[in-house]
């Protein structure tokens, strides 16, 4: 049990990570290594009239300078969005062409127009500056509110008015009728601030073309190397799948930004063939700010209606989402199917309608970022609940309780069927730990010190492990959303797990091994996780949307079932017992009620020696499985945040943060707690500190850590994290996924606490000191003490 499910086992991978011995993409150095540097547009919108590469080509050590005309001339395809959304009038979404290297137009600052391949990285960058691009500047739409206006600059020819789609979910007439019957209606206009994902390891790609074999190898910072190979082959025509190996070695964080296939990987592969050199590109932080897909960026107006008893009777939402200059791989799904189906929250709401319009802008493409759509939905629902409670003079916890779903399964009017949960319980746990009863005394004590203290809630639901594939397909997904696993028991009894999930920091090498250890009683040291290499793992969908637990581990569990069945047969045969009497525990395979047993490794050996197997059984002990869940999993949580605001400066200090999460079965509590800490910290970053800012010309104003504020340790309190487990009935382990909950649930808790402290409902994220000070000046609350 010590290393099985539920044990806080220390992470196996941390020895190499904490001693500097992790091997990342940029650590790959091939014999004939050359380096790529991209020539990027300094303009947000311009026509490319010419590219003069002569000065760069003349530099010693420059191997080649390649452009978009050559790329498309070689048949490299446009970058695609893999989820087709249909507008409410039945028309398909308007996807504009995105070439890895721009040909006629550039559409955001950072759009690549050419690439320099040189002997050193430093030289490549200097030569890239020597490439002279003749631009004709065009008018710019740097925000969604600009690009949706009549007469706005046209960014893609096939998207009139820059609109990509006008989509809806739910029953508008029912929502209107619900609102008409309401005795109280709360209205909110909110923005969900645009964020830059900032994984610690910047993106990198090392491509190597083998002309003798006509074969390509790509090392890349990917959360999903098989998806990368599929898309590179099927859509970008770089190479057929069997001639392309994609390896994602250690990956240092992703938060979604490393799901997508970017221009740089495509270009490096193609350039490797063109130059017959291995080509490496590694982003620096400045480049990451202008090329990694950003997140969020919604503008929403919404109304929620209540009856006399405080029950929600209607909810109507109108959202405008910024997609950026091009449609990134999953960009279309984030403000639609990852957003609107979450608008029911933890509440029994019969009438919901959501309209979403998306637009191009002259900014970096926007795609999924930790939570992806669900934070946007949660922020809206939870600010709505808190605001409504204040307007109706009710306790915000009580208003939530009155509306909680209490029976499962529960079908919402926005697609989702919730499987399990206990919302009153987790709220009660959070309230008790946060000592809500003692809050008035703490507020009075703070006021005596001249501080404004506030408390805010967020009781939220999320949906992990997007599924099943058939349903996703019917909603427009271009891929299935299952996962694969292969379990190889070696002749000596050690076990290799090949999984299509891929860790970018989550600790899969530990948690996946714990699932195996739990099943067979073998030490986790004897279990090796193999992932991140398309030559080793047959196929997989990768890691995002908190899916590695509910989907990836479930595939492992399914393959383990098959291994276990064969082990039983082998042991029953060798021990002359019935299969039903075989018990596997503590590294032994025993016959129940007897002293007959085989050691685990003896079964492995028996399978491979094959001297004494049941009649007709194939030798070996290796099984694989594909797991396609029947439904999403639905983690839920209750967060309570307490803040103190300094009215003189507007500074907010988070003095207490309490979480009670239901992640279903927990494999490793220590790792789960770490995920909550990280997620909540990112949510605090969104609530207080982070926002990508463009000026009217589409220039990024805070593209470095000197101006873009990431949360630091001192910005967060010591968290109170607790769990309540209601296992998911829809996967074999009962797990629900925990990677995103913190980032999804925390922003509204923080803002609700600040608005409680200063006495307003009008405050936008990020709640910087200046923003809070202005809200106070606007008359939010008279300041008691100086």
């Amino acid at each position: 049990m010590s290393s099985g499910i539920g044990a806080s086992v220390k992470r196996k991978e941390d020895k190499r990570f904490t001693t500097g011995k992790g091997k990342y993409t940029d650590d790959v150095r091939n014999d004939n290594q050359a380096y790529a540097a991209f020539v990027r547009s300094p303009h947000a919108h311009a026509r490319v009239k010419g590219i003069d590469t002569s000065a760069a080509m003349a530099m010693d050590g420059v191997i080649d300078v390649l452009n978009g005309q050559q790329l498309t001339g070689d048949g490299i395809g446009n970058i695609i969005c893999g989820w087709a959304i249909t507008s409410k009038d039945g028309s398909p979404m308007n996807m504009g062409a995105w070439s890895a290297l721009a040909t006629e137009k550039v559409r955001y600052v950072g759009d690549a127009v050419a690439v320099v391949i040189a002997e050193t990285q430093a030289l490549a960058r200097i030569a890239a500056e020597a490439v002279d691009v003749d631009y004709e500047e065009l008018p710019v739409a740097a925000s969604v509110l600009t690009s949706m206006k009549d007469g706005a600059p046209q960014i893609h020819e096939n998207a009139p008015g820059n609109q990509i789609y006008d989509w809806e979910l739910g029953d508008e007439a029912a929502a209107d009728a619900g609102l008409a019957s309401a005795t109280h209606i709360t209205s909110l206009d909110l923005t969900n601030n645009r964020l830059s994902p900032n994984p610690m390891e910047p993106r990198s790609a090392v491509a190597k073309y083998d002309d003798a074999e006509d074969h390509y190898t790509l090392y890349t910072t990917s959360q999903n190397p098989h998806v990368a190979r599929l898309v590179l082959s099927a859509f970008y025509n770089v190479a057929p799948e069997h001639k392309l190996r994609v390896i994602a070695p250690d990956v240092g964080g992703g938060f979604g930004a490393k799901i997508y296939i970017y221009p740089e990987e495509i270009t490096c592969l193609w350039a490797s063939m063109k130059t017959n050199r291995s080509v490496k590109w590694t982003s620096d932080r400045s480049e990451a700010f202008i090329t990694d897909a950003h997140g969020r960026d919604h503008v929403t107006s919404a109304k929620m209606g209540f009856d006399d008893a405080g029950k929600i009777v209607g909810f109507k939402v109108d959202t405008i989402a910024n997609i950026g200059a091009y449609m990134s791989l999953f960009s279309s799904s984030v403000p639609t199917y990852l957003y609107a189906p979450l608008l029911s929250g933890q509440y029994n709401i019969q009438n919901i309608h959501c309209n979403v319009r998306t637009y191009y802008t002259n900014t970096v493409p926007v795609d999924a970022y930790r939570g992806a759509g669900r934070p946007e939905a949660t922020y809206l629902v939870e600010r709505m609940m808190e605001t409504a409670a204040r307007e109706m003079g009710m306790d915000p916890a009580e208003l939530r309780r009155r509306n909680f779903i209490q029976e499962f399964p529960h079908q919402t009017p926005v697609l989702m069927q919730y499987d399990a949960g206990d919302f009153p319980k987790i709220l009660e746990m959070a309230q008790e730990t946060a000592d809500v009863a003692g809050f008035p005394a703490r507020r009075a004590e703070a006021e005596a010190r001249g501080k404004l203290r506030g408390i805010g809630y967020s009781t939220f639901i999320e949906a992990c492990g997007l599924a099943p594939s058939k349903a996703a397909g019917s909603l427009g997904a271009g891929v299935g959303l299952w996962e694969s696993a292969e379990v190889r028991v070696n002749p000596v009894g050690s076990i290799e797990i090949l999984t299509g999930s891929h860790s970018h920091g989550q600790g899969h090498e530990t948690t996946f091994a714990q699932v195996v250890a739990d099943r067979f009683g073998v030490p986790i040291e004897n279990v090796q996780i193999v992932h991140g290499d398309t030559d080793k793992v047959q196929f997989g969908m990768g890691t995002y949307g908190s899916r590695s637990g509910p989907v990836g581990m479930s595939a492992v569990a399914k393959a383990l079932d098959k291994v276990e069945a064969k082990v039983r047969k082998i042991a029953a045969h060798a021990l002359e017992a019935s299969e039903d009497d075989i018990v596997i525990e503590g590294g032994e395979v025993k016959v129940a009620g007897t002293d007959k047993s085989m050691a685990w490794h003896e079964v492995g050996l028996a399978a491979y020696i094959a001297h004494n197997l049941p009649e007709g059984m194939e030798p070996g002990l290796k099984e694989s499985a594909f797991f396609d869940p029947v439904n999403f999993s639905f983690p839920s949580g209750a967060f309570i945040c307490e803040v103190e605001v300094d009215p003189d400066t507007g500074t907010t200090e988070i003095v207490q943060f309490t979480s009670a999460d239901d992640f279903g079965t927990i494999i490793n509590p220590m790792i789960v707690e770490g995920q909550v800490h990280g997620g909540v910290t990112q949510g605090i970053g969104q609530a207080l500190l982070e926002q990508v800012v463009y000026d009217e010309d589409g220039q990024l104003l805070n593209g470095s850590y000197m101006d873009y504020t990431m949360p630091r340790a001192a910005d967060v309190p010591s968290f109170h994290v607790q769990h309540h487990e209601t296992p998911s009935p829809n996967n074999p382990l009962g797990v629900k996924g925990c990677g995103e909950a913190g980032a999804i649930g925390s922003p509204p808790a923080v803002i609700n606490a600040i608005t409680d402290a200063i006495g307003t409902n009008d405050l936008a994220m990020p709640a910087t000191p200046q923003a809070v000070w202005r809200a106070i000046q606007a008359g939010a609350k008279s300041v008691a003490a100086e």
Partner: protein
Amino acid sequence: MYPTKYHKPASIADAVAALNGGDEAMLLSGGQTLLATMKQHLAAPSDLVDIRGIAGLSGISANGNELTIGATTTHAEVAGNVDVRRLCPALADLASGIGDTAVRNMGTIGGSIANNDPAADYPAGLLALNATIVTNTREISADDFFEGLFATALDEGEIITAVRVPAPSKAAYAKFAQPASLFALVGVFVADSGSGVRVAVTGAGEDGVFRHAGLEAALTGSMGDASIDAVDISDGNLISDIHGASDYRAHLISVMAKRAVLSL
């Protein structure tokens, strides 16, 4: 970064020779601004003249009521030095709040004031403390030294060797940090020399660090936070950027001035 030629002279004379020998030579002290700028291709010195190896440029000494701080003395050294703590604890406090630990272990006082970033901390301290900047050719009062955004009175080839700081009777620095960079969004240094009060503001001025005549007059009249309420802090000539508009900065000057006074 672009190729550059690195020099590590052992004397001021050699440093001057190296500076004059390059087309676009620059001095390197702590490198906390210059190296980052070079990596971004925003600076391209032909030669880098690293003065950290020159004997006598680093270290702190006290002579009666005056501190002498060598140009290549790091922020961490100033923050932890017993003589600075004894004679001018406000300056040690200021140094302890610059950037982060790595910056404080590399960055130097000479490098900071030669760069004269409009949001740097040291310019406010040295200006309020009426310090003297000593170079290889002359001595310059802080009032004359800080000329504007990234501009100082230093001539071509002139090298700061030390800073002399007279101990105030009391002084304090209050800083409201720009949250990303941890530079000052507004920093106010109040120094009472015994014969008058000087108040310097950093982070806020469109022309860099400046003395605030209104605050100086009010606090010379009566040293107390109540005096500050009566002072009109105009937002004219104050910076407006994504981190704070000029009216917010003006308000913070008042708040930080009060906090400095209350901690005197």
